[in-house]
């Protein structure tokens, strides 16, 4: 639209400048450092002694891939497990959060008494610092003095206490459950905002047409909130693929639940291998980028692109 496209795009750049300046300031150096470190043997002990090693951190006997220690195959190794764990965690938790977030947002979009209260209540899980909420859940899920086991026992739903966070069959699902509890509000809030942009008259038309509510949702609401939903999912996906705190606090960095970020943390901070850790971060970055692109492609393909 509008007049000269050139003038408009000049305006665009003017409007973008402050953002770009700040982003360049805060992001450029740290990110460049990370990528540079990933090509060196930097150790936290003395970063200035870092030596260029090329792609050794990525590939080779001591690298992320092709590591000679992975005698049982790459996917059984530490890094392979971390990748699998993370993908499993991210896909399940993001799916659940999206569905639940949608449901809750639709609920909150209704007029009813006490909506104010429910809206505040729903946000609480997100508001509690992750570290704290993970600890609360760790405590509540404790096999011996956790309230969850206690109640399940009291209601005779189980007859042995369940070691939610220790039993490796449950641990991952427990983490997912807590994550869902914690981050559903994030989805809810964004979806709720998106729901506000749906024009009322289309709903009226649908009502007169006798469109089933489910269909209204599928054919009218969803296309409206789709762009916002996509963004919400992308950011959730980003966060889920970088999950660390929650797993660390709930199940510690044990091999069964370690995430890619956990691996980065382990190599970079605990072991001090800044080079290897940076390489893992970079791979993580590439995986996240890949997942994001795949997701965008997928959701574009399943519906008309209304851009």
């Amino acid at each position, binding site marked *: 639209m509008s007049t000269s496209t050139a003038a408009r795009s000049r305006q665009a750049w003017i409007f973008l400048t402050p953002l770009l300046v700040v982003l360049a300031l805060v992001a450029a150096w740290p990110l460049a450092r990370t990528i540079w470190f990933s090509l060196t043997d930097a*150790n*936290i*002990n*003395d*970063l200035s002694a870092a030596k260029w090693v090329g792609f050794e951190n990525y590939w080779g006997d*001591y690298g992320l891939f092709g590591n*000679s*220690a992975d*005698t049982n195959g790459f996917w059984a190794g530490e890094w392979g497990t971390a990748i699998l764990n993370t993908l499993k965690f991210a896909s399940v938790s993001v799916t659940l959060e999206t569905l639940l977030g949608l449901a809750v947002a639709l609920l909150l979009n209704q007029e009813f008494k006490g909506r104010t209260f429910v809206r505040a209540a729903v946000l609480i899980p997100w508001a509690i610092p992750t570290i704290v909420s993970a600890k609360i859940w760790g405590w509540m899920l*404790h*096999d*011996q*003095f956790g309230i969850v086991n206690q109640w399940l026992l009291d209601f005779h739903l189980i007859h042995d*206490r369940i*070691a939610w*966070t*220790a*039993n*490796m069959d449950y*641990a991952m699902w427990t983490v997912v459950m807590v994550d869902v509890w914690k981050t559903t509000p994030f989805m809810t809030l964004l979806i709720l905002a998106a729901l506000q942009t749906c024009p009322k008259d289309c709903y009226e038309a649908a009502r007169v047409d006798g469109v089933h509510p489910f269909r209204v949702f599928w054919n009218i609401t969803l296309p409206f909130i789709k762009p916002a939903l996509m963004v919400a999912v992308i950011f959730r996906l980003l966060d889920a693929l970088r999950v660390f705190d929650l797993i660390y606090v709930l*199940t*510690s*960095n*044990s*091999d*069964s639940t370690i995430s890619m970020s956990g691996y980065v943390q*382990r190599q970079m*901070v*605990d*072991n*001090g291998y800044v080079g290897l850790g940076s390489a893992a971060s970079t791979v993580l970055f590439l995986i996240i980028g890949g997942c994001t692109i795949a997701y965008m492609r997928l959701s574009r393909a399943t519906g008309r692109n209304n851009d």
Partner: protein
Amino acid sequence: AGVTLTISCGTVGQDYEWCKRATGDWAKKTGNQVKHLSVPASTTDILGLYRRMFAAKSSDVDVVVVDVVWPGIIKDHLIDLKPYSKGIESQHFPAIVKNNTVDGKLLAMPWFTDAGLLFYRKDLLDKYKLSPPKTWAELEAAATTIQAGERKAGVSDFQGFVFQGKAYEGLTCDAVEWVASNGGGTIVDSKGDITINNPKAAAALDMAAKWVGKITPPGVLNYAEEDARGVFQTGKAAFMRNWPYAWSLAQGNDSVIKGKVAVSALPAGEGGKAAAALGGWQLAVPKYSKHPAEAADLVMYLTSEAVQKDRAIGGSYNPTYPSLYKDKDVLAANPFFGSLYDVFINATPRPSTVTGLKYNEVSQAFWQATHNVLEGKQSGADSVKALEARLKQIKRQGW
């Protein structure tokens, strides 16, 4: 008018109170000033913070607290205290001093020590007519008896034995105790050779794995100190492996087991002798301090016998001077110090000094291997074999 030093010696609570008192005294005495830098509660967080500050050559801190396993890791960033100690280190526990000495440099002064202990319910032992276990097998037998009895008596979730089974440094401590007490060595010996792949070590791990689900709740795989204490202190366990701190809490006024608890050295393995993991903290001075002399002086003051005695009496901190374990004021305040003297003096250090920078990685590999065995994913033998390979890879050209 003197200089201002910044010390990081613990956060709120008892640690901080004691530290503040002692540094205040020193400040008054020397005319310098001392500021306190509070650090997170988590050991890992503290280390991470220090390493980042050291990497930036930050002079923000002049005296730091150092965990017993750290000297090897941060050795390049601490000054040698020998010139300032004037030989006083010889009066401390030699094991700790050795631990703190890297490449001939005394990097940290011992401040207080810690060792793994066995806590038990003496009322229950009496009830079932058992004596305190001397070996792991006895412990297992006693725990089995008590657990069965108590469960029958109606405490359906009563446990025989709890320890720290979470995949973290605590498990390394526990497992080092099992292995060492079974005659399986200390993972890496003092020469730096990897010794873990031996049948005794494998047997020790298998032994612990057998407990899980039998006398120990499966949840122990995710227990840290407080989880174990929680179970024990609510009267739901007969035995507990923990650090001395649990003592005063278990004897606290609101504790349901007050007066029913006793402490002993950890059991020994078949044909081995009891081993307790060495814990505790040291004080050190970073290279980047602008006032190393004053800082070293403060360290010497804080680790002096007089100050340690004070802390032992008032705060139950285990002193690092053997002489203080015979001091009657100290013993009056902490009766078990005397009986456990051997435990403290013979505590088994983790292979932190020899593995240096790579200690964390070694420990990680070790606790993970142990965790795998506890989970039942691997047998002890397979696990130590794999661990050996893993450690070799970590070692590369050398520690």
